[in-house]
């Protein structure tokens, strides 16, 4: 019974992360919330009894996707714009 409760909590967590990810004002927050979204997905795969997916989602979805997002943000100067805004 406790597994069902855990699954419900994780599903609600998924929906909260999915709603809040794009609504964050700053792009860096969006990517970080998206990282937590794929982390919850990895845990959900374990609860759905498919460990292959959990390893792949954790190794690929959470890690590599987020690195690529952070590098893109660095390239489009979205990371540093907070300091630049404060200067102006």
């Amino acid at each position, binding site marked *: 019974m406790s597994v069902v409760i855990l*699954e*419900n909590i994780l*599903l609600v967590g*998924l*929906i909260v992360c*999915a*709603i809040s*990810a*794009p609504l964050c004002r700053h*792009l860096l927050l*969006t*990517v970080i919330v*998206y990282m937590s*979204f*794929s982390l919850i*997905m990895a845990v*959900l*795969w374990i609860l*759905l*009894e*498919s*460990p*292959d*997916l959990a390893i*792949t*989602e954790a190794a*690929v*979805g959470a890690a*590599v*996707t987020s690195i*690529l*997002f952070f*590098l*893109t*943000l660095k*390239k*489009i100067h*979205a990371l540093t714009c907070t300091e630049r805004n404060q200067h102006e």
Partner: protein
Amino acid sequence: MRALLENRFAVTAVILFGIGLANMLLQKNLIKKIVGFNIMDSAVFLLLASRGFVEGRVAPIVAEGMADASLYINPIPSGLVLTGIVVSVSISAFSLALVQRIYHAYGTIELDELVMRVKKEAD
């Protein structure tokens, strides 16, 4: 209402798909569109993999001599989703590369500024 609670994974997948679709269509920032697209991807994978789950059964690692199908969950959906996850990473990497080139060419990734600059350049 009871059907909603029973198929809770499918309902969550539909809600996530809706959120992702709304973001992809309505967000102005290209990066947020890509995040919306990834959320849609995960929603589809969640729906697919949850259809393969059978209660009270174990992960499909066939133990020695116990090759009886009623002990394990359905391996086919998790096989499909495994390759899907890796492909969705490649797609988001490719779209992020496009975003970088757009920024390098037009200096912005906000859609309305971008459309104006493209129109301006077309005149």
